[in-house]
């Protein structure tokens, strides 16, 4: 038992940023639900998660390059590209829909791989390389969809943006009113999608040698090289996975809005917000510390701040200012560790 306690304490102290973000998220979310006229209802949870899916995936995408010690400025653009591809392909027969989703995810993954190739073999800084490839992604998106529009399957959109009950009822897999199904039928599909994809891919990846190499590179690339770790492979994998997660965000956005929109300013705001979410979730911009689940929490926290504007009366023209101040405070909390260190040199590691 003391052994377990010690392990827990170690786990928490090693993930202090993540732990803090999670506690803040839970507290703020509970308070939000108490203030909301329909708090603690399935409808509110569905709305909350629907609004968060795209930014959660883009934040997870951003995490991998950040763990390497770089930044990916193309995540928002790749999401937009996937969004536009999906708006063209995700319709028709069930087979065509599934094929369209596959092609959408493949597009993003391929684009991520391209980023990785440019960074690894082109030997260009990630921030510059992705700035350029991001423009290419937006250009392609505009080419595919010069004007917003598209007809993503409406039933799919309805089924995936509601609770499990509507999903089952829409496709008639089984009797949605069945007794055994009732205890879980309220569960939001978007939340399920987030949890399954992020945990299902991230946790196994983190435990592979490639995954651990990503962390090692972020901590010290030269040490990782000296240790004979597969550096090129890890970088390629990180950027490829980033492309995949960004495409997940774009695909969901297309399903949610049943259309595509090559909106440059929207792509930019997703990229910036993804960096904010990554930092909020306890990942260090210097690399080597953090993780995708932290970014998931960070993205949810970022969205939750805006939810408050709708239940409290705050002047609309002051809202961006308040959001900015709260963000700054939240991110600064992560810097509190600088006050505790005994030796300043530790800050530079």
């Amino acid at each position, binding site marked *: 038992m003391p052994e377990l306690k010690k392990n827990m304490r170690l786990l928490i102290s090693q993930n202090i940023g993540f732990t803090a973000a999670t506690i803040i998220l839970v507290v703020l979310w509970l308070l939000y639900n108490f203030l909301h006229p*329909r708090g603690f209802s399935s409808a509110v949870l569905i709305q909350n998660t629907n609004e968060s899916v795209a930014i959660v995936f883009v934040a997870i995408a951003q995490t991998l390059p950040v763990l390497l010690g770089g930044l990916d400025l193309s995540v928002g653009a790749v999401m937009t590209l996937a969004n536009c591809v999906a708006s063209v392909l995700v319709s028709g027969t069930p087979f065509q829909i599934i094929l369209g989703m596959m092609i959408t995810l493949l597009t993003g993954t391929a684009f991520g791989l391209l980023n990785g190739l440019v960074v690894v073999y082109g030997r260009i800084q990630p921030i510059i390389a992705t700035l350029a490839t991001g423009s290419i992604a937006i250009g392609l998106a505009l080419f595919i969809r010069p004007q*917003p529009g598209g007809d993503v399957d409406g039933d799919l*959109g309805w089924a995936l*943006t509601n609770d499990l009950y509507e999903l089952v009822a829409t496709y008639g897999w089984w009797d949605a009113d069945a007794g055994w199904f*009732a205890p879980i039928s309220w569960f939001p599909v978007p939340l399920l999608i987030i949890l399954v994809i992020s945990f299902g891919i991230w946790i196994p990846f983190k435990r592979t040698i490639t995954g651990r190499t990503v962390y090692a590179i972020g901590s010290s690339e030269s040490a990782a090289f000296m240790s004979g770790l597969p550096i090129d492979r890890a970088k390629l994998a990180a950027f490829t996975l980033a492309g995949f997660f960004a495409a997940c965000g774009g695909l969901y*956005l297309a399903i*949610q809005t049943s259309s595509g929109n090559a909106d440059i300013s*929207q792509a930019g705001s997703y990229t910036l917000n993804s960096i904010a979410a990554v930092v909020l979730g306890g990942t260090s911009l210097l690399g080597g510390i953090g993780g995708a689940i932290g970014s998931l929490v960070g993205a949810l926290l970022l969205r939750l701040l805006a939810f408050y504007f709708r239940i409290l009366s705050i002047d609309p023209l002051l809202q961006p200012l308040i959001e900015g101040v709260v963000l700054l405070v939240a991110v600064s909390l992560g810097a509190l560790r600088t006050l505790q260190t005994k030796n300043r040199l530790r800050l530079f590691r």
Partner: protein
Amino acid sequence: MIKRVLAMSVAGLAMSCAVAMAGPTVVNGPGANPSCFAQWSPDTKFLQWEKREGPFKLAVVNGFVGNGWRIQMVKTAKAFAEDPSIKDKISEFKVVSTGTDAAVQLGAIEDFINQGYDAIVTIAVAPDGFDRVIRLADKNNVVIVPFDNVLDTDKVMQVNENQLEMGRMYASHVLGELGKLGKTSGKLLEVRGLAGNSVDRDRSLGIHQVLDESGGDWEVISVVGNWDDGTAQKVVADAIAVHGTFDGVVAQGGTNGVVQALLDTDHPMVPMSGESENGYRKALAKYADEGLKGISIGQSPGLVAISMKAAISALEGNVMPQLISVPLPVATYDELEDGLNYWSDLPDNFFTVNEFPPCGVNISGPSIMAQTKDDS
């Protein structure tokens, strides 16, 4: 914990079972107050929602914020919510700006539906993608009113000004004034708006329709001013440097900049058209005698007030057109009067048209500017 999960599942179940498809029914016209809520075209259908008792909960979901027009729109919404004609009908009023992110805007609308709001007025960030919230709104009998940037759908009630007609009036006025000078052909400068935007497209279409119909031999030089004073000033100055003198200027925005460029380059004052910026109207009043015989028509930030009024009218069970055409607020150089339709003491980038007498929307410029930031 278990209790909460249980409560959630029950609530979720109730949510999913109890709702049948509701929403508006398509009915025959005429609609209520047709002088204000005018049908867009003769084949616009009419919608009717179930009548219910006020006062109502009303929300405005703005998208992008950060230019003068949007800020003035938000201020207008707040001023109008305090207007005696409407104050008693509103029990709760909220305004949020979501930025350009579609997911956030959809989320905000869905949130207000969940909170039990009766009507949501919005400027859509994209013409598509609202199917889901429209379906939800219909389920919960919520009235959604997109205005300004309207949606490509006929399932919701929407409010806008007729941009094609506006373009036609711009060109007609300029040709009319040129006609008075005896000119039936010549060189015109067209200053366009934001490329790829439907408003820019429709206004330009209207302008060119009139020019083509006039039969005159018009040489049109088109420049893109993005509806922005700075950009417009630069491109107009460039056009004058390259092409010399124009017989008339057909601008559709950024008009302060257009006039400034004419003054800076010592271009003769010619008939022109433009938006409804206060600075442009000041210039029209000042230079009309020198030949700046202009027309000023604008997309009014006051559209938000009309949309709010339309939402309440729909909630009261009145028959409403699906697409409402708001009368174009027109003022020509000879109709301008300081303190009435322009204000020499207000800033140049203030949009002057805010009053729509047929709608009972009479918020004057000074009363909007008096809206301070702490009285939400």
